[in-house]
């Protein structure tokens, strides 16, 4: 195929990617996002499927059967767990504005600078060869398609200016810079880039499926044809059987490895966490991504077997079957499409990986290093924002340049698969620190640091050293005799462990020491304040789902002006203004007036910076403008305890204020009751004085008459004096009644309870008024029921009641034709007494009033007859005290019937 055709196709495809990215960005800006949906999110996960998947799976299947599947079974198995693990990480990263794996780890362990740096360095070491691998795939595929299947010279020896891979690299650098570092804030989503990743994921799947269909149904007669032919081939028939020598354990390690890779590879972290728009999108990715893996692996074995059968003894690398099969069949269009498929798999990986690495490099290595240097910081503080963004762009260039150089020098010796797996093992070293960090509060910075370092060193020794030996950079004696001649320090039989393939072997040992150091040292270390806070936030992220709560406890002094200036340095005037405006909207504008920033503002600005330069650098930046007082763990615990106590106190206060409110209402009610009572009391006093005025008036009048008229007749004189005496008695009676009422009201009056026959009391009372009755010519009838039940009562008090009723009856019965009837009879649980007179009767409205202590209610027109005194009020009080009741049954011009009933003694 002509080189120019392939070149045109490649660069047209690249141009298309630019177009799509540009379109994606444009849509994002106008609010009609292309990528804000779960399908695009799920598709972006397939950045996992690189050229290694596209070309390498077939190669691996052709040499070792179904082994290749482990790389996809792992992610499939772990996908359901994403809902727990990945979602938690997403939550943490959104809250803490974390943008890379290095940032995640450094944030968790107290925003530690060294930890972030080491993770970054490891990622660079681990991933650059992997990127190189993609470049190699592009170069190799280009050479195959232009120079023919058997061409093995490839581009390795050609001068770089004549190397297509070099130009592709340059284009990718430009692309990544354009769409990956467009804004300075790393937490911003890169919609153009994600659109491209999603588009490429479809291209590579379609291309691979098409090749699969072509091989299976074009070159062969369906699947059964391929498999039956392969079964007859002695070399291929071995591949149907799983390797039993350590094969199972290898599967276990490979699955484990890919499980960790799918979550912690920088590019996976980028698409899954940073580019996540809604946490629930994860839900869709959890089944769509495994489905994609299933589809893309569907034809791997048919193509592998088909290639082997097709080429027979020809020296064609199985890694190239996807390309060489259609090429050898002269299917130009299909070959080109197959090439573009592989190209897309490689480019998407390169774009996302280099971008993720550049963020790591700029935020976790470059910035902290620069900021630690005070001279530099002071000199260039106004250019920090520019330095950051150009640092990022430059790092993309250098990362891809190093990858290109690696591709040109070392990688040619290595197969696609082993480079990928080596990279996986490097990344797996982050797993203990991350998983421990989000589930285990005790996980400590030192543990993470030593664990990762140990894992890194072992990874290098067990996997990289053999590779370097292979290319002749290191003496082979290390391989055979071990480091410094110690046989237990042989890279592939470390500590005497044999029987494992190199990758499983390296994974086992590196993870063993990594976890051992992490757990062991964490147990032995005490966390700093900052780390303690972060650990709490990470592990219990559900409690801190809003940004403001997850603030570091701040005890230092920071000036608002310094802080805002710092933010402006990084974000520029406009973005900084916008961010501060947002802050004001949330928390009010008071901060502008205060020279010293409060915790809220400090935390907010630190997070804002963290989203741009990473947590550790942000911490450095803030610390440099604020005098942060070191506070001890004890103090923090104290603060936490105090804040908890405050919260408790607050709740108690709230409860108390509620109680107070109720009490207040009760008091108000009581007060109203008091006012009413007071009013009643006044009424009572005015009633009593009123009552007293009447006899007093008579006494005075008659006394004056007697004094002014010495010539009075003797009988007149006597009559007037008698009247004065009667009125005096009336006064005395009144005074006694008032005192009685007072005694009852104040509770001083006690009943002297005895077992009584009410008839006896009635008889006694009648006897004592007998004379008056006779004097007034009143006809008294008595009608007592015999064998009345006994009652419990105070004889003197009940006597007082009966006498009062009798004297009223005498007073009000018809003069000269008076008639009084006294009856007693039994009711079920009471004895009842009635005193009936033939007076004028009492109006219904007065029936209640006459038992009151007062003449009249001021607002009512009805009034108690004058001179009725307090007798009935006292009678009512006494009967009430006996648990009885008293009432009047009367109508004007009819007999008046006063009744009371008392409870009998229950037998």
């Amino acid at each position, binding site marked *: 195929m002509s080189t120019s055709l392939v070149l045109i196709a490649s660069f047209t495809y690249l141009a298309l990617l630019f177009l799509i990215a540009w379109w994606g960005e444009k849509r994002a800006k106008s609010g009609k996002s292309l990528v804000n949906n779960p399908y695009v999110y799920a598709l972006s996960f397939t950045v996992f499927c690189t050229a290694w998947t596209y070309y390498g799976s077939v190669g691996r299947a052709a040499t070792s059967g179904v082994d290749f599947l482990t790389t996809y079974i792992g992610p499939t198995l772990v996908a359901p767990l994403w809902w727990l693990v990945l979602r938690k990480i997403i939550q943490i990263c959104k809250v803490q504005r974390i943008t890379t794996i290095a940032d995640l780890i450094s944030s968790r362990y107290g925003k530690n600078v060294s930890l972030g740096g080491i993770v970054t360095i490891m990622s660079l070491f681990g991933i650059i060869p992997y990127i190189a691998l993609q470049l190699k795939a592009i170069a190799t595929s280009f050479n195959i398609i232009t120079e023919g299947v058997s061409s093995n010279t490839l581009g390795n020896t050609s001068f770089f200016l004549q190397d297509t891979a070099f130009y592709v690299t340059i284009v990718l650098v430009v692309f990544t810079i354009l769409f990956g570092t467009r804004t300075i804030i790393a937490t911003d989503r890169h919609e153009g880039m994600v659109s491209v990743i999603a588009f490429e994921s479809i291209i590579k799947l379609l291309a691979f499926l098409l090749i699969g269909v072509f091989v299976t149904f074009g070159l062969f007669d369906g699947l059964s044809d391929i498999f039956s032919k392969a079964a007859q081939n002695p070399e291929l028939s071995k591949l149907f059987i799983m390797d039993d020598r350590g094969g199972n354990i290898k599967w276990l390690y490979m699955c484990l490895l890919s499980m960790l890779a799918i979550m912690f590879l920088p590019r996976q972290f980028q698409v899954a966490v940073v580019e996540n728009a809604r946490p629930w999108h994860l839900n869709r990715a959890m089944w769509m991504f495994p489905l994609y893996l299933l589809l893309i692996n569907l034809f791997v074995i048919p193509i592998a077997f088909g290639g082997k059968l097709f080429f027979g003894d020809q020296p064609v690398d199985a890694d190239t079957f996807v390309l060489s099969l259609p090429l050898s069949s002269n299917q130009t269009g299909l070959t080109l499409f197959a090439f573009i498929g592989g190209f897309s798999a490689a480019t998407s990986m390169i774009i996302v990986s280099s971008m993720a690495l550049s963020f790591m490099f700029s935020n976790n290595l470059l910035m902290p290093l620069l900021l630690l240097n005070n001279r530099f910081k002071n000199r260039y503080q106004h250019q920090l924002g520019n330095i950051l963004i150009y640092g990022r762009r430059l790092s993309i260039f250098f990362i891809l340049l190093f990858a290109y150089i690696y591709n040109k020098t070392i990688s040619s010796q290595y197969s696609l698969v082993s480079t990928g797996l080596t990279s996986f093992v490097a990344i797996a070293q982050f797993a203990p620190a991350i998983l421990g960090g989000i589930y285990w509060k005790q996980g400590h910075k030192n543990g993470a640091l030593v664990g990762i370092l140990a894992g890194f060193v072992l990874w290098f020794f067990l996997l990289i050293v053999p590779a370097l030996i292979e290319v002749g950079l290191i003496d082979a004696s290390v391989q055979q005799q071990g480091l410094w001649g110690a046989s237990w320090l042989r890279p592939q039989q470390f500590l005497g462990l044999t029987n494992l393939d190199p990758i499983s072997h390296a994974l086992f040992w590196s993870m063993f020491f990594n976890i051992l150091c992490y757990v062991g040292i964490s147990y032995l270390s005490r966390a700093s304040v900052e780390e303690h806070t972060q650990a709490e936030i990470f592990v219990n992220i559900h409690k801190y789902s809003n940004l403001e709560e997850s603030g570091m406890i701040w005890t230092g002094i920071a000036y608002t002006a310094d802080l805002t200036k710092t933010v402006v340095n990084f974000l520029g005037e406009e973005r900084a203004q916008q961010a501060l405006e947002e802050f004001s909207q949330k928390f009010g504008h008071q901060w502008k007036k205060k020279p010293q920033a409060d915790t809220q503002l400090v935390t907010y600005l630190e997070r804002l910076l963290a989203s741009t330069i990473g947590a550790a650098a942000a911490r450095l930046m803030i610390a440099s403008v604020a005098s942060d007082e070191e506070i001890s763990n004890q103090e923090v615990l104290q603060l936490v305890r105090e804040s908890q106590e405050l919260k408790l106190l607050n709740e108690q206060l709230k409860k108390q204020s509620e109680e107070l409110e109720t009490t207040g209402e009760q008091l108000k009610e009581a007060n109203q009751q008091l006012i009413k009572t007071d009013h009643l009391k006044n009424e009572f006093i005015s009633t009593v004085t009123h009552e007293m005025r009447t006899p007093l*008036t008579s006494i*005075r009048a008659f006394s004056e008459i007697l004094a002014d008229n010495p010539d009075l007749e003797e009988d007149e004189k006597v009559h007037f004096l008698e009247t004065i005496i009667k009125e005096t008695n009336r006064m005395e009676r009144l005074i006694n009644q008032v005192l009685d009422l007072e005694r009852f009201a104040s509770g001083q009056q006690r009943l002297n309870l005895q077992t009584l026959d009410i008839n006896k009391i009635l008889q006694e009372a009648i006897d004592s008024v007998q004379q008056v009755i006779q004097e007034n010519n009143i006809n008294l009838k008595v009608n007592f029921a015999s064998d009345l039940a006994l009652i419990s009562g105070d004889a003197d008090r009940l006597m007082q009641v009966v006498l009062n009723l009798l004297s009223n009856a005498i007073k009000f019965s018809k003069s000269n034709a008076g008639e009084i009837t006294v009856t007693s009879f039994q009711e079920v649980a009471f004895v009842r007494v009635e005193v009936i007179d033939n007076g004028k009767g009492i109006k219904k409205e007065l029936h209640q009033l006459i038992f009151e202590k007062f003449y009249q209610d001021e607002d009512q027109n009805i*009034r108690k007859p004058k001179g009725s005194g307090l007798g009935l009020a006292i009678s009512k009080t006494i009967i009430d005290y006996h648990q009885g009741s008293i009432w009047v049954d009367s109508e004007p011009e009819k007999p008046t019937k006063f009744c009371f009933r008392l409870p009998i003694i229950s037998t």
Partner: protein
Amino acid sequence: MSKVLIVDDEPNILLSLEFLMKKQGYKVYIARDGAEAMDMIKEQEPEVVVLDIMMPEVDGYEVCSFIKNDDGLKHIKVIFLTAKTKPEDIEKGKEIGADAYMTKPFSTRNLMKKVKEILVA
């Protein structure tokens, strides 16, 4: 001989005032409640009414208003004689046209003087 009506529901008041008025040579009429008093006023048209306020049914205020609102009767002088001592009660009494207001317990001497004055005026 001037006619004086005494209205009170307290027998001893009636007794004492009747004695005093008769001694002064007035023709004395007596009513025990408001309704009786109004009948008596229409019937006898006394020159002076000594009027208690607090009586059952028709009270003294009503009786006074009855007198002062009737052109044929309003020349009748009204002296309130009551246990109601509050300023607003006295005010009310004056408002509805009473000619004098005396509170219980009262001085018989003052009362007699007042009656004499009112009759002369």
